[in-house]
């Protein structure tokens, strides 16, 4: 029974396209996150939502827009994709101040 799931697992697309990544958690957590892990394996937080409300918004280009339709889902939409957006994107969830549970990741390749 998957705790945090993401789709798709792989995403290959051309520069300039718009794409979305979906995330769902069945742990009953109030807080969800998006992280970006670059080629050097450095994991950096992008956004966090608590009960559908945005609480963390790091310095991320406006082309990235998170959307939380309910507290079990947090989607990430990316407009006008650039080469530098190629990375692995992880969704995670937790209770506030608790351990975080990560999804399997979405490997985005922009050509």
């Amino acid at each position: 029974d998957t705790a945090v799931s993401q789709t798709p697992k792989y995403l290959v697309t051309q520069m300039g396209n718009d794409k979305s990544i979906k995330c769902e958690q069945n742990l009953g957590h109030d807080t969800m996150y998006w992280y970006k892990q670059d080629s050097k394996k450095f994991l950096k937080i992008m956004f966090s939502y608590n009960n559908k409300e945005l609480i963390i918004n790091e310095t991320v280009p406006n082309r990235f827009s998170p959307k939380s339709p309910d507290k079990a889902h947090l989607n990430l939409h990316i407009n006008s994709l650039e080469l530098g957006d190629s990375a692995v994107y992880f969704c995670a969830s937790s209770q506030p101040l608790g351990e975080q549970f990560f999804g399997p990741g979405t490997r985005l390749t922009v050509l």
Partner: protein
Amino acid sequence: SQKIEQNSEALNIQEGKTATLTCNYTNYSPAYLQWYRQDPGRGPVFLLLIRENEKEKRKERLKVTFDTTLKQSLFHITASQPADSATYLCALSRGDPGKLSFGAGTTVTVRA
């Protein structure tokens, strides 16, 4: 600016030995610190959490220490096994709900 450094990118050890990983931080006052394990192609998995007022935590063969004076955490894997081979990430939080800052990780390889 805030910095989180993990001692080395890679650590190779013999099975049965103790692996010791270091996480140092500067310009940061963490309320707690977490350690995660990441296997290739997978998301990080939580291992241990230690708070600023705690010196040491243990879980099975894992031990974490936290020294806020030295601004350092040590992560030990005792009686290491090839299955312990993975990348280990330290992550710090000031207590902002959920906001974790991660180090770059140390990749541990345990030789049989």
